[in-house]
């Protein structure tokens, strides 16, 4: 069975049909790309998948369970994590704490323990620190742990967002333009990291990207979105040579 099965997904804002009859099936472990011109509705799809928007119609199944109608926090706990196109870090918290917030549901102790620092507090916090540092280490960010997130350079902020999303222990990771604003070197490094985390954490990744080098370099399958509807789906070679896709990007 596929990890993610989306059928006939659609949403309207007032009279505007932003996404219509969107279908996607992602197999477990796949690195999948969602591409399309600006304004095609890619981020809107992400927002529906993560519960930020409630779809007007259609269904979203993750491992066979329905996600439609759940709120973003519940969807995250079901195993979908994401990053944002416009970076959304916890700016006034340290890099370490950014990751620890994402570990919130995995490591538990009561409010009383929290207020008094008694009981499971010390042990749990130590375990959380260790886990958070492990994740940061994957991104080579261990030495930044004590810095405020807002003081990180731009590229590191993007990486921290991915690290934070990974800390929620997702089955499916959604990356919204992870290479936006990066130079070619950083993009190449990012490609390696994405491949590496897919293998190390055994997760499935769906990403939105405009950088065609990144898309063709790492994606195993692509879906092209145009004007809110699906244009075509297939392997990168097939999709990017499709005359319809070329028209959508370049015009007649």
């Amino acid at each position: 069975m596929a990890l993610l099965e989306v059928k006939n997904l659609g949403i309207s804002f007032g009279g505007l049909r932003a996404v219509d009859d969107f279908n996607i099936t992602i197999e477990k472990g796949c690195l999948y790309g969602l591409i399309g011109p600006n304004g095609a509705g890619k981020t809107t799809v992400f927002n529906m998948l993560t519960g930020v928007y409630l779809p007007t119609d259609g269904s979203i199944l993750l491992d066979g369970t329905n996600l439609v109608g759940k709120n973003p926090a519940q969807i995250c706990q079901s195993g979908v994590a994401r990053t944002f196109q416009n970076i959304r870090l916890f700016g006034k918290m340290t890099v370490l704490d950014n990751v620890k917030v994402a570990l919130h549901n995995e490591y538990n102790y009561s409010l009383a323990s929290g207020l008094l620092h008694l009981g499971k507090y010390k042990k749990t916090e130590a375990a959380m620190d260790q886990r958070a540092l492990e994740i940061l280490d994957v991104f080579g960010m261990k030495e930044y742990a004590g810095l405020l997130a807002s003081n990180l350079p731009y590229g590191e902020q993007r990486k921290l967002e991915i690290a934070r999303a990974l800390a929620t222990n997702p089955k499916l990771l959604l990356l919204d333009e992870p290479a936006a604003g990066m130079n070619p070197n950083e993009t190449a490094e990012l490609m390696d990291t994405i491949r590496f985390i897919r293998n190390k954490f055994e997760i499935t990744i769906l990403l939105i990207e405009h950088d065609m080098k990144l898309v063709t370099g790492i994606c195993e399958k692509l879906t092209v979105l145009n004007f809110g509807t699906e244009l075509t789906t297939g392997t990168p070679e097939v999709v990017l040579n499709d005359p319809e896709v070329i028209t959508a990007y370049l015009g007649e």
Partner: protein
Amino acid sequence: MKNKQIDKQLIKNLAIIVIVFAAIEFLLYGDLLTRQFRSLLIPVCINVILAVSLNLTTGFLGELTLGHAGFMSVGAYTGALVTMNLNLPMIIEFPIALIAGGLVASLFGVIIGVPVLRLRGDYLAIVTLAFGEIIKSIINSLKITNGAMGLSNIELHGNYKNFGYVFFLTVITIFAIKNMVNSRQGRAVCSIRDNYIAAEAVGINVSKFKVMAFVVAAFFAGIAGVIYGHNVGTLKPTTFDYNKSIEILVIVVLGGMGSIKGSVIAAIILTILPEMLRSADEFRMFLYAVVLIAMMIFNSSQIKQRILSSDIFLKLKKTKKEA
């Protein structure tokens, strides 16, 4: 290694607390304080509790609360009614009053949680203001609270003779809030302040932690209210109006939103300073106004950035670190 550091910090804090307490007790027993100063000891503690608890919602959750005095009044009235109606020795009665006052206030924290779930920012600030005014006018019209006349002849359990007791409660409050901020609950609260959409996206139940912050803050404000009632001996609904809420806010703003140490220091300064200046009441409001405006403009101006990045400041910081 990190644990050892924390323990060191804890020992240092405990040492400071013991020294401060011993010094004040020494001054009290040696009868070295003027009457004016002696009468300020408890109000300082009350304001510390109020400011530190308000900091949880305003500084750490990032929601401006203009009805903190409302929680305080609920606690004060509950506590006073408990001790006036129970005929037990003070040592039993007062703790019951404290807990009852705190719990009833936190119940009101749950009630205000309903709008808190749906609103943010400006709108929520106004709702907390409205909430404080609603509490005031309900207390004003109830029989059990004796309406506008208020309650009088409350037994004086919280005056300077019981300074030890009040000091202990103040320390507990500071530690509880500080601990909470450094716990998973506190991290959840801070993450909502920094970016609630991202907080939701990493699985934080935003509603739950927003309400939790309000409930915990209300609990301690309620306790401050109980101490207040048993320090002054009389309660009037007008004491806990919008101006009182702003007074607490001024302390938090001056101390720095999100800084517990700052709240404590600012509470001490802003309680003692206006009393020391003559024609206190007229001047106090003026002082508060200037503090609010100056702090906000200073915080977001270039001046602060320049001072923070200036050579002298960096040198100062460096020498402090080395020492």
